[in-house]
């Protein structure tokens, strides 16, 4: 059984009353999915492929987006979002071998034991994410952007990061077969999780 998720109430954290000259954003559904990665860098594209597959039959009230150059300014898109789902590839490590995947609840809790293929210790997963959260901001990666968003109070109350372990991140159009096999199971899992989240916290979209 999947451990029960303990979500805070679906209200947007850190809403800033004075948003200055920022572009007025269209109302967004409560769930935003970002598939991250690079197309021609082998397994790094898996986040994009999973998001594409999810977008062909998206869960209700869910907007699916692809991010080939995730930047911190994406944080400005999170107004009104109650659940942010990020899908990204990571280099495999002993705790998370090639083809395995896990879901991290950003802000300290790693969950998803039932669907993990290999056991990545929760502490290890979170520590790894945090270690990588202070890299060169010239090219802010997903971890940096999330950490920046957390500190700025821009993140929605719930953030899930689906991490898929790959092994080939060199220039290549092909994914490792074991990684590619993950697409359908992860899509099904994400859809299941989002539907469950919506059933619990549901529409209409949260407001700040």
């Amino acid at each position, binding site marked *: 059984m999947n451990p029960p998720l303990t979500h805070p109430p679906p209200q947007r954290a850190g809403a*800033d009353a004075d*948003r*200055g*000259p*920022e*572009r007025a954003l269209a109302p967004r559904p409560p769930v935003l999915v970002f598939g991250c990665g690079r197309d021609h860098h082998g397994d790094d594209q898996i986040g994009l492929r999973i998001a594409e597959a999810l977008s062909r039959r998206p869960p209700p009230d869910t907007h699916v987006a692809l991010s080939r*150059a995730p*930047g*911190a*300014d994406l*944080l*400005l898109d999170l107004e009104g979002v109650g659940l942010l789902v990020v899908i990204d590839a990571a280099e495999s490590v002993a705790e998370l071998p090639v083809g395995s995947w896990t879901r991290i609840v950003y802000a300290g809790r790693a969950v998803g034991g039932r669907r993990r293929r290999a056991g990545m210790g929760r502490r290890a997963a979170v520590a790894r994410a945090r270690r990588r*959260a*202070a890299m*060169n*901001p*010239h*090219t802010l990666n997903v971890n*940096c952007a999330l*950490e*920046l968003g957390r*500190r*700025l*109070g*821009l993140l929605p109350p719930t953030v899930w990061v689906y991490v898929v372990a790959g092994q080939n991140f060199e220039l290549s159009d092909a994914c490792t077969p074991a990684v590619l096999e993950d697409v359908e199971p992860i899509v099904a899992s994400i859809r299941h999780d989002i539907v469950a989240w919506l059933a619990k916290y549901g529409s209409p979209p949260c407001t700040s």
Partner: protein
Amino acid sequence: MRNVTIDVKHVTRVEGHGNIAVRVRDGEITSLQLQIVESPRFFESFMRGRPCAEAPHIACRICGICSVGHTTAAVKAVEAACGIVPSEQTVKLRKLLFYGEQIQSHVLHVLFLAVPDYLGAGSVIPLAGSHPETVKTALRLKRLANDLCAAVGGRHIHPIAAHVGGFTHVPRAGELIELKQRLVAARTDLAAVAALYAKLPIPDFERDTEYVALKVPGNGEYAFYDGDIVSTRDPRPTPVRDYRTRVIEEVVQHSAAKHCRSPNAPSYAVGALARFNNNHAQLHPAAAKLAADLGLSAPCRNPFHNNTAQLVEIVHCVECAVEMIDALLVRGMKLEALEKPTRFGQGAGAAEVPRGVLFHEYGVDSQGRIESANLIIPTGQNLANIEEDMRAYVPSMLDAGLSREEMTLRLEMLVRAYDPCISCATHLLDVEWIE
């Protein structure tokens, strides 16, 4: 007399990999290097044989920060080689795109990379905790600049609509009107940034330096897109096609990027401060006022004030972008056919990209294919000057009795003040095979 060894591997908050290595024995510098350990990129080699129209789209991949700059320099060089004269609309759109990139890059550098040093934060991540409104302001400004680039160039980096001979897409009037409104509103954010910046303790260090930049003849505009080569030591204009008379490249052992010197000095500086020192009279009045408010006046020989000049240029570019949008809306925009080559030959192009003047030169064969390429990157031009600055700065820090840790931080700040893009700067190396 002191013995100090400083080894910084790698300098953070710069693009690419570089090390600072300093040895001081008995108070004397025995070794000082800014080591560039980034792998060479080989762009000049693998562009050979490609159709010349592809040059901008290949060259822009050199950098994700200044991709518009590489696109622009490449477009201008190929157009010079092919006898193409772009239309008035094309030039206006290129300049507008250029303003977007300058704003984006300068905001990133000043607020994300440089300011954390002055506010005691290790990076923008802790800065978000201590100064959240500043970081949110930076995000808004950067987003605005990215959207401006996307509207004109087709996407926010690696512009896809900017081609040799023109654009394959023009922004809609509604897009430009919305962007103009946001640019006007951004003045409030910029005023807040300026107020913060005015309080920063900029180190007091000066060194007599030659500053090289493009300059538009007469009372023309502040040079980003056009101009001849001038310097603070030799203000006589040199056409871009003769850039090799002003820029002399040399291979040094400890750097995967070539160093540059001028005919006048063993090193020189390019970038925002160089542009300011050569072109301050052409600044938009709002930018000139900010420069005065911040105490920036030409000639300024303090490299740390490159960040100040970048902030001044952000204001300049915001104001010029507003005016350019007005000009485009008044004249109206339409999709124009790309201008065709009238000849093939040799051509050089230059643009003042965020980190300084960028040169591209291509030789194009009778089939319209690139047969030679030479790219001279701003960071490469600055490397020797950064070393000279460090060489002058270390003794003053020793005299002031700074700790090794403080000296290390100051040297890192000095390097960062130049906003180096090391990945861009490493290009072709001569490789000698010994059997």
